[in-house]
């Protein structure tokens, strides 16, 4: 009901006809080249453990952006898929001794499965109700994780081994793990780009812009929304699984509501509905949190201030504003 009567969420104008290489516009191609160069060069200058965490959260934010930015659905419970992906990957690696690529895929499958059920329930309502329902369902997952034994309660699953990639390359050294994480991130990023620029993605954008019209054109809107939701939740699960292997631990923090808020913050700050926004947003938020970590609640306060500033002053986000200044699509 809400989406029919109010202006669509403030994102960039609808996509112009695609041109350039593999659906990337020239500006996006340049930005992609810069991003890949940064991913290759940065571990030689910055602590790789931090970069790996950043890439996991960047993938998480990109997955979330697939929903909010391209379908216009605000899921306030993405921590559930991230956290469950994290727990299940951790369990698969520690208790079953599976190789990392399988663990991460299992994490993604669990995220997608959970997303299928929750998405099926939540897409019955739109707008603000959708946000509240996804949040409430995610909180249910949190309480579930508090109670079941396999998550080890407050301790979390600790000392998760990374094992060998494909049974060949041991990922225990951080620099090797880094290339694995970078690979997962880039694959996820390109997959999202591919989804957005496929005919399927065009229908998603049409739903975001004008849902009644998409229905009247004969599209089964709910099916499209659900598929997008499952894809987003699955990629969030992949991000969570990769994170668990990276930091050797999966805890209740991954699955609780502040994590859902954090991914909303990253995406909003970077720019809703921009390809590179979530990556930039994740970078800024993670850097800020690392520096503010010793000051306790100041992390929470500064997150709140960024939320308020973004909503009141620059709704297009960092990348959105840059794109507007340069008159390009990023």
């Amino acid at each position: 009901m809400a989406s029919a009567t109010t202006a669509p969420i403030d994102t960039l104008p609808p996509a112009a006809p695609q041109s350039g290489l593999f659906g990337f516009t020239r500006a996006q191609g340049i930005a992609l080249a810069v991003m890949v160069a940064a991913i290759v060069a940065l571990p030689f200058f910055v602590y790789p453990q931090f970069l790996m965490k950043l890439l996991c959260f960047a993938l998480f934010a990109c997955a979330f952006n697939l929903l909010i930015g391209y379908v216009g659905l605000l899921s306030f419970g993405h921590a559930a898929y991230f956290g469950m992906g994290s727990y299940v990957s951790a369990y698969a690696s520690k208790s079953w001794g599976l190789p990392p690529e399988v663990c991460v895929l299992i994490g993604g499958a669990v995220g997608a499965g959970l997303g299928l059920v929750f998405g099926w329930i939540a897409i019955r309502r739109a707008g603000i109700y959708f946000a509240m329902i996804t949040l409430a369902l995610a909180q249910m997952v949190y309480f579930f994780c508090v109670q079941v034994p396999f998550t080890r309660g407050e301790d979390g699953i600790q000392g998760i081994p990374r094992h060998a990639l494909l049974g060949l390359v041991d990922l225990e050294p951080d620099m090797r793990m880094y290339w694995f994480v970078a690979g997962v991130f880039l694959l996820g990023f390109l997959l999202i780009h591919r989804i957005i620029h496929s005919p399927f993605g065009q229908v998603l954008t049409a739903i975001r812009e004008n849902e009644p019209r998409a229905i009247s054109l004969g599209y089964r809107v709910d099916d499209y929304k659900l598929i997008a939701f499952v894809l987003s939740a699955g990629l969030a699960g992949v991000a969570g699984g990769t994170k668990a292997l990276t930091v050797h631990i999966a805890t209740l923090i991954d699955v609780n509501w502040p994590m859902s808020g954090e991914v909303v913050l990253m995406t909003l700050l970077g720019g809703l509905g921009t390809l590179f926004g979530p990556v930039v947003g994740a970078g800024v938020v993670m850097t800020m949190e690392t520096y503010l970590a010793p000051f306790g609640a100041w992390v929470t306060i500064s997150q709140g201030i960024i939320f308020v500033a973004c909503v009141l002053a620059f709704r297009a986000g960092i990348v959105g504003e840059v794109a507007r200044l340069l008159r390009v699509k990023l």
Partner: protein
Amino acid sequence: MLEDFLFQVEMAAPQIVLGLVNGAFYALLSLGLAVIFGMLNVINFAHGAQFMMGAFVAWMLLNWLGIPYWGALILSPLIVGAFGVVLERLMISRLYKLDHLYGLLLTFGLALIIEGVFRNTFGSSGLPYAPPASLTGAPVDLGFMLLPKYRLWVVVAAFVTCIATWLVIEKTRLGAYLRAATENAPLVQAFGVNVPRMITLTYAAGVGLAALAGVLAAPIYSVNPAMGSNFIITVFAVVVIGGMGSILGSVITGFGLGLVEGLTRVVYPEASATVIFVIMAIVLLARPAGLFGRA
């Protein structure tokens, strides 16, 4: 057989009362959310933080100014409500022409700031707040169980507040303006009613209700910065179950779900934390608009 049953009732009664007390808070909080949403079309994510502020203001009034519980019961909602006026005028009022989701995001940010500031100032551990002397002492004997006086007071006070709010909205001239403005604000404004001021005061009233709930909660739960966020997500589920269309509906849903939660704690304790969310999922599948909602 009968003795068995009576024993069961005796075991279950405290949990059911606890459920009713929780239900009282669900009702008060979801009522405030519904009032605010009806007028502003904003889901007030800061509602939990304002609930927590209500409790803290009561604590500050007592420990810094020596104002007792009964004074705080009136002053704290007024103070937090005034804070709500400032928030609405400075920030929320800028968002009315935008997608509703921005209201949610803004108030979420405000909730983080409020919670962070209180955590910095008072720490994360709870502060004690004693119930007033007139409500302590020997519990009330209901025949089949003993009910602490203060809990009884909370249930009665919350119920009376809910009914009073309903009467104001349904039976007074002010309430009529309010309902009319919810339906069609420009038309009401054309009749010479100051709608923007009414919106501001509605927000303040909703925030005041949250603060009142906070004062009532202060002697039961320890006063701590996280007490609001623990509650608010459950209240969201309550609101989805009830549907935000009806004031009385949110009151009934609030009390009812509190009871259900209490009963679950007796029958199957493991599910007591999740039962409301499960009910929400079932209601959404059967009746997506909510029990009392208009489609």
